[in-house]
């Protein structure tokens, strides 16, 4: 055996890691889908915004976020590495295309995976990058951040006007705790006057704005279809890689995979569709 390398990771271990990271992403997907459903709640976005505030500020969530991105990056790096390595193992291909009866999705994992990466970048551009301040979006802020404790503090005329405009337009939550749907310009004006105020991305209104445009809705529906094809194979594939194949339960895992795929993609699809159709 070749003992020259200090760390040698076998192909099976690499696959185990790909499956392990993917399992984490699969669990996250279910979580993300469930959270999205709050966008459809008829409460003006109170529940979803409260959830977003928790997700944006909780320490454990922040750790989880790093772990999640780690999983995503390692999953796609390892899977691509294995793909390139596998390509090299048949230098001369067949003249006749394969007629072996196999599932289609399993052969398309690299293509669907690459498409997902592209979709994901656009999805980040739409939402996540706003949080990182890479792109501009819509914001929300706690009303209490505008309480002036120091009477000597001067608030500019412009900031006062902007503040009153937001209040008059009814952009507060029902309990008056939050001011939402603040545009990028309004935020800049308010931030200049109240440096302490902590603005957060208003994902609820961003989602509602985006999903009122038909071509964005269509793009997202296609995105979910690709997700579906990818996880339809990925779900049972992960079980197989973990060695969990049993004469009794394999059928159950197969069915569970189909159910999971449909629940996730329908759960995701209902949000842009629902917003677009005014549900």
């Amino acid at each position: 055996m070749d003992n020259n390398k200090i760390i040698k990771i076998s192909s099976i271990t690499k696959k185990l890691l790909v499956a392990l990271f993917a399992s984490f992403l699969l669990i996250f997907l279910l979580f993300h889908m469930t959270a999205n459903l709050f966008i459809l709640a008829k409460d003006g976005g109170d529940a979803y915004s409260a959830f977003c505030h928790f997700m944006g500020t909780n320490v454990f969530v922040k750790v989880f976020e790093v772990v999640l991105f780690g999983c995503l990056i390692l999953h796609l790096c390892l899977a691509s590495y294995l793909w390139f390595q596998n390509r090299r193992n048949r230098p001369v291909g067949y003249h006749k295309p394969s007629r072996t009866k196999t599932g289609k999705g399993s052969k398309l994992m690299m293509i669907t995976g690459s498409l997902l990466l592209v979709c994901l970048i656009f999805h980040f551009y739409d939402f996540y990058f706003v949080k990182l301040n890479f792109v501009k979006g819509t914001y929300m802020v706690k009303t209490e951040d505008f309480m002036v404790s120091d009477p000597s503090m001067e608030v500019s005329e412009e900031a006062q006007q902007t503040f009153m405009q937001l209040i008059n337009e009814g952009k507060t939550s029902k309990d008056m705790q939050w001011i939402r749907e603040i545009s990028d310009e309004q935020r800049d004006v308010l931030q200049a006057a109240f440096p302490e105020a902590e603005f957060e991305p208003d994902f609820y209104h961003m989602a509602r704005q985006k999903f009122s445009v038909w071509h964005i809705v269509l793009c997202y529906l296609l995105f979910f279809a690709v997700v579906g094809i990818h996880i339809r194979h990925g779900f049972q594939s992960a079980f197989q890689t973990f060695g969990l194949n049993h004469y009794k339960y394999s059928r159950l895992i197969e069915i569970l995979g189909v159910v999971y795929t449909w629940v996730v993609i329908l759960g995701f699809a209902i949000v842009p569709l629902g917003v677009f159709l005014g549900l």
Partner: protein
Amino acid sequence: MNFTLHIWRQENAQAQGRFETYKVSGISPECSFLEMLDILNEQLINDNIAHPVCFDNDCREGICGMCGLYINGRPHGNDDGITTCQLHMRKFNDGDEIWIEPWRAKAFPIVRDLVVDRSAFDKIIQAGGYISVTTGGVPDANATPVPKRLADMAMDAAECIGCGACVAACKNASAMLFVGAKVAHLAMLPQGQAEAHERVKKMVCRMDELGFGSCTNTYACEAECPKQIKRQNIARLNREWIKQLFAGNHKPE
């Protein structure tokens, strides 16, 4: 029956290969695929047309694993659970064009025409596909009790004849079904337990070194295996590998 054959011809491992087209006529539908190639070769020799087509074969009854041709996009031709020698011309239509290619994999270099070198499989077996026993008196048949169910499952895995169709069918040229079958049949028997951890480690490492791909769970191997070895054996191999990762704390030799 008449056929047009497109056969891969290649002088040796280094030479540039190409497809040559031959016509065969008057073939009986009861003729096996290899017999059809015999008839072609007889024509080629008698009419002094070309060097006969080289192809691997031995027992011609589906148990040796020597024959292996990639016929019209499927290893061992268009039928399930058979080797090339068990494929009969009645499976084709009169006047069909048949494309015959060798197994394609980095680990299986072409020797000549349709003959590939499958000694990579032997090297994997040599790495650990055995049990070490001191030779001596023949033990009693029932000295080591094995439950019938396990014996049957081990026998199903041990049916693998090492033909290489799994590698040929796999889009990654992966040998996981072969290694899975070889690891599984010993892992299910008491005789295989003592060296179980070492075995799976050595065989998988050897498999990687020899240039076989990794499994993407496409299950093309299972669909094309002439002995219908199940994908469960790949899962068993993965399981044995995980066990080895956490429990295989043997000192390296």
